[in-house]
């Protein structure tokens, strides 16, 4: 046995453990059950059984979600004539893969069928939604980890960093900026209270009760901003500024 190998063993084990931990905690897994449901749902879709395909896609999401799975779910809803649910699924897919051209094209096409403009996005929202929250997280984590490793190296080998202040300042500025952007992106993600009308003519009322007078009707696929919840009713506003209360059974929430 080579005695020089002995000290490296714990390090290798530590590295392996960290890698395993990362894999278990962060990385995606592939469930055979989901794969089978996905394949079966695709087959149903291709034979024109859109509602059944949508149900199976939905069932597959219980084991995990992917942008492709949600895209197909949106397609199945669209073909089944459920515009609101289709748009919600496309939006959920875009939250995972915001630059996917096919999802963007289908969402645009679905909106054209609805004929109602969505609530406008602010400049900040448009900019932040160019990347998914996962991408923002990885960017910020990478910048922060780089900074911390450089700081660690500076403690271990101070001479290597002497006279090179930018080696720390630039990564520090990058880490600060990306962490700030991650915080903004997370706030945008978690506070995104949108809903989509999922029935043909949903009644919007003046108050959160069945007895409240009808205010207006919203058509399937209308995008709504949700402000409040009371019982089974949601206080909403359309892109055109119409406000009222809608029964939660008539909408598909972006974040259920």
């Amino acid at each position, binding site marked *: 046995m080579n005695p020089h190998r002995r000290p490296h063993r714990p390090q290798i084990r530590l590295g392996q453990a960290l890698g395993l931990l990362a894999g278990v905690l*962060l990385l995606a897994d592939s469930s055979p059950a989901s794969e089978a449901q996905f394949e079966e749902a695709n087959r149903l879709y291709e034979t024109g059984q859109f509602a059944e395909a949508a149900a199976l896609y939905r069932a597959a999401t219980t084991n995990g979600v992917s942008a492709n799975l949600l*895209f197909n779910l949106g397609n199945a809803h669209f073909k089944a004539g459920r515009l609101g649910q289709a748009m919600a699924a496309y939006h959920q897919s875009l939250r995972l893969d915001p630059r996917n051209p096919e999802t963007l094209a289908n969402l645009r096409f679905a909106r054209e069928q609805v004929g109602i403009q969505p609530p406008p996005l602010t400049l900040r929202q448009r900019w932040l939604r160019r990347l998914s929250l996962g991408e*923002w997280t990885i960017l910020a984590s990478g910048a922060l980890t780089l900074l911390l490793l450089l700081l660690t190296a500076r403690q271990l080998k101070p001479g290597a960093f002497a006279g090179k202040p930018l080696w720390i300042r630039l990564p520090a500025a990058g880490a600060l900026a990306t962490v700030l952007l991650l915080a903004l992106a997370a706030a945008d993600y978690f506070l995104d209270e949108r809903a989509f009308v999922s029935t043909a003519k949903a009644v919007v009322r003046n108050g959160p009760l069945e007895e409240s*007078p009808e205010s207006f009707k919203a058509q399937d696929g209308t995008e709504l901003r949700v402000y409040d919840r009371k019982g089974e009713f949601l206080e909403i506003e359309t892109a055109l500024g119409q406000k009222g209360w809608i029964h939660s059974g008539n909408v598909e929430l972006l974040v259920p």
Partner: protein
Amino acid sequence: MNQTVAFSFALLFVSNALGQQVSASLDRASTSIGESVTLSITCIDFSPSSQPVMPSIPGLRFASAGTSRQFQFVNGKRTSSYTFNILVTPLKPGNYSISPVQVQHKTRLLKPKPLTLRVQPANQQPKNDNGLSQYAYVRLLPSKTSAYVGEVIPVEIQLHYIDGVNVQMPELTADGFNVAAFPKHKQSRMQKDNRIYQVLTFRTAATPLKAGELQLGPVKQSMVLRVRQRKSRRSPFNDPFDGFFDRYQQVPVKLEAKAQPVKVRPLPAANRPAGFNGAVGRYTLQAKASPLEVTVGDPVTVSIQISGQGAIESLNLPKLDWPGFKSYEPSVTTKKDNPLGLLGTRMFEQVVIPESDTLAEVPRIEFPYFDPIAGRYRVLAKGPFPLKVNPGDKPVAPTIAADSVPETEEPEPPPQTDILTIKHYLGSLGQATPLVARPGYWLLQAIPLLLWLGALAWRRQANALANNPRLRRERQVAERTRAGLAKLDTLAESGEAGEFHTELADLLREQIGLRLDIPAEGITGDIVHSPAARQQFSEDTRDDIRKLFTASDQASYAGSQTTGEMKAHLALLKELFCALR
């Protein structure tokens, strides 16, 4: 809606031809017998010739509370205001209209609009079980006790306290009501029974959602009272400074005002106009359409303004389904004239497209609503507007103007006739929970942080060692001793006496040099006679040192020694090291 509602938005102006204005306001709309409110009469851009002339109102007593003057320069324009503060003390319960107040300006008399003050009987002050009601109490004052479903009820919550801090927002229980958020409260002062109370007035609006005998309240409010401590009597044995610096006790309290019954009547089913969509209040309607000469397919914009009192933000237009016109969803903007949104204007911009050149008018626009004061439905109407529609070859698809920036998350769309088909690759499945919300992510993210903290601690320790030569030498000698003792064991076993004693003497010198803080080189057995050694080492220790040095010298001259002798010297050396430590 009664005058109290009108009062809630109390800045009422009367203008004269020269721009001078006089306004009057009360700091609270409701009070109790004996509790004064402040009436402020403000003269803008003029100085009155005399004190305002107060009306003689049985049940109210007026007393001057001073004047104040303010100047403002805004964009180079100078504005002055002269304010008379008048203390109004009610003597009897009831609803009072304070009118007419008159202010003399040169030869003219200016009169602000009348104000309404509601006075409750004095015994409506809530009593707290803890006896603190003399220091603070809260009141719930709905402006009316009966209303229709959907009719907005302005509500005042008044917190009266003598001294306190950390006042929390009131918690109003209102089952069956939709309650607006509280805008910023108003602060004023009130005198009652020779006590001055701070009064915080919170205003909100409650809209009943169903008919029946409802309860508005109770309202609860938390704060910390500052109550003056009273000593029973002075004693010469008390600390003379006791009570001088710490005379107030802070008492957290939760005040409560009891619920008020509100009788809510349903909107009458009889004579309900078609198109009624639940608007309750008092409104006016303005409408116009333009352009009034178009080609088939051209858009006509119908602008509708509904102004008045009520739940302005929840007003919606009845659907304009006119035959021969294609209509789009209206764009809506709201202008609120008071913080609660009970006064204001709701503006609708509706685009309609004539689809035939036979159309001759934009149809009549109707807005039905329920007037709760009159207790009946009313229908506001404008139009019809004459329209000339010219025949066109190809109707042009209209574009709807949007006030805000359109969503541009997608690139310019290519022509598309159907959705793009499904994907056959599932892709990597992930949790629905984003990475940033998973504990595992934060666990991993902590690793580089811990590495850095570890390096930081190591660096501090290294720096401490570098800046402390004594400590550094201690560590070096300890290391040298550890290695040397092991070597001595080996040498003793192998019987190498010369090398054994050289090593032994070296270790001994290192230890003695460290203890006496002198260089190790050149230390001999004679060191035991030095004053430092006499001071620091005991007689036995000095003997052991001398013995070991002597043995070492003898071994270097005599040559051979047995393993047993060497082990005995090694044992003595170890004992000596223990003694030196």
